[in-house]
């Protein structure tokens, strides 16, 4: 019998898609509790790393990083003096919350539950990632004030990032082998039966996005995002007090 505490800990730490067979293999292979513990923790890092590799879409990740950075940049442009960007290493400081949020999204993809995925999961995942970026800022608030991003910029950037990321994640959900297989089979059914009249516009857009998921679709999304950001910056520049 495996040690209950170790088994629970491994169950919690392993990505949902790997839990079932990895824990089963460990139980079948290990004869003693110590062996189970040793093997279990040895397996953990490679399994998580492999899952992250499999669920990462590098093109999408780049667009997400770009969207987050642009959101923080728009916040800095509006709420701070220009000296923040040009004289106080603002461009570099904005990269820190972006980096934390991107890493959180990356790890989040690996723990993305393929079976119980709901429509709010893109919003939830984006919010959690940006919350972690906030926590990162809180941790360095006292120790490294030179790396801090002002609160107003963080709030604006995080809000806009959640909006952008939710849209991107809804249209281009993270790739996982299970989801891809299910979507492909759905797509086969759609090709045969056509889109049902009861399908919502949201579902229709998502199917189109999945069907034409290619470099050009990603480039289109990127261009749309950039356009939205430029419009946002333009509106902000006009409405800025004294601007």
């Amino acid at each position, binding site marked *: 019998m*495996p040690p209950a505490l170790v088994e629970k800990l491994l169950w919690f730490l392993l990505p949902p898609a*790997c839990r*079932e*067979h*990895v*824990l*089963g*293999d*460990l*139980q*079948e*292979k290990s004869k003693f509790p110590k062996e189970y513990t040793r*093997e279990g923790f*040895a*397996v*953990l*890092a*490679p*399994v998580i*790393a*492999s*899952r992250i*590799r*499999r669920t990462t879409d590098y093109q999408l990740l780049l667009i997400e990083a770009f969207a987050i950075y642009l959101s923080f940049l728009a916040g800095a442009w509006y709420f701070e003096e220009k000296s923040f960007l040009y004289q106080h290493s603002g461009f570099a400081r904005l990269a820190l919350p972006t980096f934390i949020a991107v890493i959180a999204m990356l790890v989040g993809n690996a723990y993305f539950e393929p079976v119980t995925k709901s429509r709010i999961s893109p919003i939830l995942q984006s919010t959690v990632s940006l919350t972690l970026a906030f926590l990162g800022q809180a941790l360095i608030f006292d120790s490294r004030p030179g790396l801090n991003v002002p609160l107003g910029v963080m709030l604006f950037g995080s809000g806009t990032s959640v909006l952008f990321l939710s849209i991107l994640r809804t249209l281009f959900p993270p790739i996982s*082998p299970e989801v891809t297989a299910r979507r492909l089979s759905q797509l086969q059914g759609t090709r045969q039966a056509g889109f049902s009249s009861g399908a919502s516009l949201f579902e229709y857009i998502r199917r189109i996005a999945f069907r034409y998921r290619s470099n050009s679709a990603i480039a289109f999304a990127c261009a749309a995002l950039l356009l939205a950001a430029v419009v946002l910056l333009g509106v902000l520049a006009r409405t800025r007090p004294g601007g």
Partner: protein
Amino acid sequence: MPLIGSIGQFEQLVLAAILSLRDHAYGVTIHGKVSELAQPREVSLGAIYVTLDRLEDKGFVSSWLSSPTAERGGRAKRCYRLEAVGEQALQESAATAVRISEAIGQALGKNWAQKWRKQWNNELG
């Protein structure tokens, strides 16, 4: 027959293990077979999972969850099957291995494999 992209030595071992295990290829049995083939090297279970994932992404193997069994605490096995592309990749690497073996045989004589095995066994004590 079009050539498949090259595969690494460890991937060859895993593919060979899946081929020989046929319907009983899952994490534990694959690990056992690969450990046997890779002697005297030790193989970790984590390395097997990583390689299986990579091979599945390349389309060389496919997997499915079987029904749960009591000896595994009621948990299912992830079983693996060699796909046609995987079999072709294994064929190509096996053919290359034979050519290498022949080349060494021409250079060192017929009993080179036994000599090297004896040498390794002596080194390992």
